[in-house]
C-alpha cells in the first residue's frame, strides 16, 4: 500500500475503534477472540501515519496503540494453573468497547438513511410568527442555552473596559415617574398602560415609567391586571398606595 492510499483510508475512520473494526472485518477476525499480536502490528502502522498526518484525533489513536500493547504484554504472562481465581481475558474490556461502539456506528448509519429520506421535505415555517412582534429586528428562531453561552462569549471578546466615572444623562428619573404615576392614580381609579404610553415620545421615558410601575408593584403601591399575555395592562391603586 502506498502512503497515499493509507492517507485516504485513515481519514475514513472516525477513530481508533472504527479502525479496529475495519481491520477485524477486513481480515475476517473473530471479535470474541481477537489475535492481539496481529491486530496490534497492523494498527501501529496506521498510527505512525496518524502522527505524520497530524490527524486531529492522533492522540486517541496513540492511546489505543498503548492499550493494545498493554493487552499484548498481559497475554504473554503465564497463567498460573493452580489459581482459583477466574482469570479475566485481558481483551475483554476492549472487546466490549468494540461491540458497544459497533452498535452505535450501526445506528448512525440508520440515522443517515432516515436523514436522506427526510431531506426532500421542507417544513412550513410562517414568515411572520407573531403579529404583536415588539421589535423591528428579526427574531432568533429558537433560543437555547447554547446560544446564551455563545453570545456571552462573543460579547466578552468585544468588551472593552469601561471608562470610569462616565455619567449617564437621564431625561427623567425613576422617582419622578413614581410621583407622576401616584398623581395619576390619585385622580383616576384605574389607568390603561397603553394610554400612558401614548403620552410619551421617548423610549427612555417609557422604560423608566415601566420600571416605576414595577417598583410600585413591588412596594404594593399599585396593582396590575392583565387578562392575557400581550393584552393591555390595567393599573390601579395598591394596598400601600399613598404610604
Amino acid at each position, binding site marked *: 500500500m502506498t502512503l497515499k492510499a493509507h492517507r485516504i483510508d485513515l481519514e475514513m475512520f472516525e477513530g481508533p475503534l472504527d479502525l479496529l473494526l475495519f481491520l477485524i472485518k477486513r481480515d475476517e477476525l473473530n471479535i470474541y477472540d481477537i489475535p492481539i499480536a496481529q491486530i496490534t502490528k497492523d494498527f501501529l502502522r496506521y498510527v505512525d501515519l496518524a502522527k505524520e498526518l497530524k490527524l486531529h484525533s492522533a492522540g486517541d489513536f496513540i492511546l489505543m496503540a498503548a492499550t493494545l500493547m498493554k493487552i499484548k504484554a498481559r497475554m504473554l504472562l503465564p497463567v498460573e494453573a493452580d489459581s482459583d481465581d477466574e482469570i479475566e481475558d485481558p481483551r475483554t474490556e476492549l472487546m466490549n468497547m468494540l461491540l458497544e461502539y459497533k452498535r452505535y456506528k450501526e445506528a448512525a448509519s440508520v440515522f443517515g438513511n432516515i436523514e436522506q429520506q*427526510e431531506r426532500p421535505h421542507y417544513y412550513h415555517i410562517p414568515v411572520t410568527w407573531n403579529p404583536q412582534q415588539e421589535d423591528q429586528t428579526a427574531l432568533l428562531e429558537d433560543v437555547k442555552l447554547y446560544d446564551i453561552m455563545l453570545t456571552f462569549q462573543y460579547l466578552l471578546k468585544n468588551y472593552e473596559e469601561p471608562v470610569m466615572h462616565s455619567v449617564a444623562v437621564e431625561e427623567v428619573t425613576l422617582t419622578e415617574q413614581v410621583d407622576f404615576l401616584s398623581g395619576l392614580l390619585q385622580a383616576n381609579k384605574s389607568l390603561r398602560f397603553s394610554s400612558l404610553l401614548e403620552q410619551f415620545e421617548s423610549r427612555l421615558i417609557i422604560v423608566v415609567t415601566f420600571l416605576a410601575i414595577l417598583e410600585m408593584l413591588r412596594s404594593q403601591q399599585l396593582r396590575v391586571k392583565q387578562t392575557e399575555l400581550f393584552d393591555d395592562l390595567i393599573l390601579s391603586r395598591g394596598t400601600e398606595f399613598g404610604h
Partner: protein
Amino acid sequence: MDIKELTQIVEALLIASPEPLTETRFKACMGDDKATLPLQDIIAELQAEYERSERAFLIKEVAGGFQLVTKAEFEVYIKGLFTKAGKLRLSQAALETLAIVSYRQPVTRNDIEAIRGVSSDSSLRTLLDRKLLEIRGREEGPGRALLYRTSPEFLQYFGLNSVQDLPKLKEVEDILSEDQRELI
C-alpha cells in the same frame, strides 16, 4: 361547529404555527369554542382534502404534533430558496454522536467519548449549532458535568413523533450475524 369550520380553523393554525400543532395547543386555541372532534380526526379530513385537490404539501405528524411539509418532488425547486446547496448532511462523526445521545440521554461529553473512543467536541458543536442537541442541566455527583439531550428539532429533522419512535438499537449478535452474511 361543523367539520368544515373545524378543518378551516386547524388549517389556519397549521399555517400560522411556527412549531408542530399539538392537541393541547389546539384545545388552548379553541378556548370556549370546544372542538367536537379530536385534532387527529380533523387532520385526517384535511389531509384527505389536500390529496384530492393535489396540494403541493401534506400534513406530517412530527415531534408530538402536526406540521405542514412540502412533498418530496418539489425539493429540486425549493433548494433554490436557500443559499447553501439544499440541506447540509451530517457527517459520520456527527451521526454517531447523535445516535449515542439519542439512545442514552441524558449523557455527558465523557460518556460519548468513552463509546466513540475519540474526542467529540467538534461533532457536539456542530450538533449544538444545528440545534439538534441541547444542553440540559448537569450530572449529579462530584464532576457535575453538563448533560446533553436531543432537542425537539432533532425529532423534526428525522421526521419522528417522539424519541420512542427511534429505530430500535440492534443487538450486537444481530449486527455480527449480518456481517457474517455479508461475507458469504
